[in-house]
């Protein structure tokens, strides 16, 4: 009996020594649009099979604004329940102090990613998140309807509004009562900042807060384009667009009730998915530009990354998980399923992706020229600055004050927020 116990003890000890990496349970938190969560689960299933670890997803609302508040709270409380956070491209400076420095652990893989994206996630020389996909919006349009009315793809916002009205009026007269010309993201949240930045900057109105920190938004070009956008609401865009985020606009678009939509590339795969009424009937183009001096098409840079919490109890396993999800093979898998833009340079020349998601190689130049939101200049005050901007735009779109007045107020508020410096 004694001998048996000794053997047992030896056996247990051997097991403890023999398996240095004990299986651990990890948690990843993500709020994603479309099929994002489903595809993440599929990727995690592969990871679980490869590593023997278990990973649970904590699902959040799709609004980045909602996610951020919760993440900040968890991180401030030193929450160890969440190991990996899916973070927006703009959050790095605000959360950096509570995230693990990935520089050393990822130096074998970062070279495959676009340097500009890696740069955007580097704060004070510390890589705080590894990118898993990037984003640059597209103008989705209905090929069939544009052909029917012999209209060409609009290159300016004015053309967009004219074509939208032409097609919408024609279709409504033909009995399609629910059709609208244009849907975008008009709710008062981060998405409106992206939309409005595109309107303003593509019309030569500056980028709200310039890279040097100066506040440029109060100018006649910006006011003119916001007044123009105000004119869309209730005419070519449904009045409810003031409460639309990505998924609400896609809801109108994908049921065939919109001629144009501004949205991220994820809507491409979903629109062409089985059961979609608009499958094969649409295409994408770069967003329109304004007219006049300094006008050029602008796309706001988006994108999502994975960061490891400083408070995770399994940091090494979490870093391995992040590297797995961000790996070329998994990014390719994700892109084939969701048409998210990969952050690995080589995947833009991949034949499978080019055949199944043709938007991806076409979007390489657009995302490379995409404009970041002023999160680098405003640093830790970005959320508040963005909130003041989207509130001024939302008020203008709602008809609460003219664009000129709202932008003058906005300038004063941003100046106060800036104080002695961002």
């Amino acid at each position, binding site marked *: 009996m004694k001998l048996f116990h000794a053997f047992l003890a030896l056996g247990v000890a051997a097991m403890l020594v023999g398996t240095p990496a004990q299986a651990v349970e990890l948690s990843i938190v993500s709020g994603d649009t479309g099929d994002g969560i489903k595809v993440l689960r599929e990727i995690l299933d592969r990871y679980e099979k490869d590593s023997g670890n278990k990973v649970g997803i904590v699902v959040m609302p799709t609004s980045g*604004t909602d996610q*951020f*508040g*919760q993440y*900040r*709270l968890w*991180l*401030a409380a030193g929450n160890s329940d969440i190991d990996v956070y899916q973070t927006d491209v703009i959050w790095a400076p*605000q959360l950096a*102090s*509570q995230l693990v420095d990935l520089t050393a652990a990822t130096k074998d893989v970062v070279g495959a990613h676009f340097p500009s994206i890696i740069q955007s996630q580097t704060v004070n020389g510390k890589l705080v998140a590894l990118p898993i996909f990037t984003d640059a919006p597209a103008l989705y349009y209905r090929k069939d309807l544009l052909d029917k009315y012999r209209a060409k793809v609009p290159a300016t916002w004015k053309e967009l509004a004219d074509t939208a009205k032409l097609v919408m009026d024609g279709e409504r007269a033909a009995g399609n009562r*629910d059709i609208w010309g244009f849907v975008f993201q*008009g*709710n*008062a*949240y981060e998405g409106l900042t992206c939309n409005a930045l595109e309107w303003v900057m593509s019309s030569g109105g500056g980028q709200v807060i310039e890279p040097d920190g100066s506040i440029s938004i109060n100018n006649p070009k910006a006011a003119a384009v916001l007044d123009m956008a105000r004119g869309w609401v209730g005419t070519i865009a*449904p*009045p*409810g*667009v*003031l*409460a*639309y985020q990505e998924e609400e606009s896609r*809801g*109108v678009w994908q*049921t065939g*009730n919109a001629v144009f939509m501004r949205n991220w590339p994820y809507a491409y795969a979903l629109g062409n998915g089985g059961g979609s009424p608009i499958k094969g009937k649409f295409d994408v183009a770069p967003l329109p530009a304004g007219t006049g001096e300094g006008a050029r098409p602008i796309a706001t840079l988006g994108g999502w990354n994975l960061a490891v919490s400083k408070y995770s109890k399994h940091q090494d396993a979490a870093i391995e998980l992040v590297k797995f999800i961000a790996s070329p093979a998994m990014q390719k898998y994700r892109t084939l399923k969701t048409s998210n833009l990969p952050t690995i340079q080589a995947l833009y020349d991949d034949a499978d992706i080019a055949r199944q998601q043709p938007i991806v190689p076409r979007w390489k130049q657009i995302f490379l020229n995409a404009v970041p939101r002023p999160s680098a200049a405003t640093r*830790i*005050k970005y*959320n*508040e600055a963005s*909130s003041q901007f989207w*509130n001024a735009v*939302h*008020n203008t779109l*709602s008809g*609460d004050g003219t664009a000129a007045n709202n932008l003058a107020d906005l300038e004063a508020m941003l100046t*106060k927020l800036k104080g002695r410096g961002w």
Partner: protein
Amino acid sequence: MIRMEPEKARAAHSSLTAQRVRSAWLFLGPMLLVLAAAAGWPLARTVYFSFTDASLADLDARQWVGFGNYFSVFSMPSGRVLYDGLLVDPVWWRAVWNTARFAVISVTCETILGMIVALVLNAKFPGRGIVRAAILIPWAIPTIVSAKMWQWMLNDQFGIINVVLLNLGLTSAKIAWTANADTAMAAILVVDIWKTTPFMALLILAALQMLPREIIEVARLDGANPWQIFWRVTLPLIRPAVMVAVIFRALDALRIFDLIYVLTPNNVHTKSMSVFARENLFEFDKFAYGSAASTLLFLILALLTIAYIRIGRISLDGGR
């Protein structure tokens, strides 16, 4: 007859009192401890943070700033004087106004409707038990779930409410209920009234069932009509219960967060005090400012409750 000497009597009395006081503290102790830990400590921390410049990025680096988050005065080099702080923040006062307006309208409607429902349910009719249970359903659904449900029903494109109104010919176009600044608050009010009228009805019904039937019958024998009975007999008798129900609802309504947060765009037209506080606490890098807003929210609630109890001469200890 035994007469105790006064000092002796006092001594016996005071030792008995002391013993009672001791056991009272013994019994109250655990409850007070839990209350202090669960309510007192967080409240004290919030008040404390509101006097600092705390940031969620690094809570330990905070410094004392006195009343700076509430009110401060800057003299610019140009000689201009600037006022800053919560007390001069128009967004905050707009939130206070939104919340107050919401609370007054919703509680008023809920009280009147709840009273009507309670009076109906107090009458005897077949199937009363089932109706009483059924009317509680909106109250039983978690607020987030009902907010999401209403969000779908109020949706401007696919929502059933627009379809019904359109087919009945009451509206000529689909209305974006929650997006439009003019209708967003009305939409929130409708959902809130739908949800909490059952609560009011339940409390008032409980009070109605406590009423002795004889009083009503006597009034009827004396020739009072139902209207007079309600105003002169029933209402005065259930008034204390109604007043307590109203204060419960008013406190809830002044803290409104979930319905507004889920249903409407996050703009100044519908932002409530709680939404304002949350935004500053967690989204912006203004934890201290958000704490100040939470502190003011608490003060407003406390003062209103005290004023209401004083003015309404309500006794919360069960007496009348």
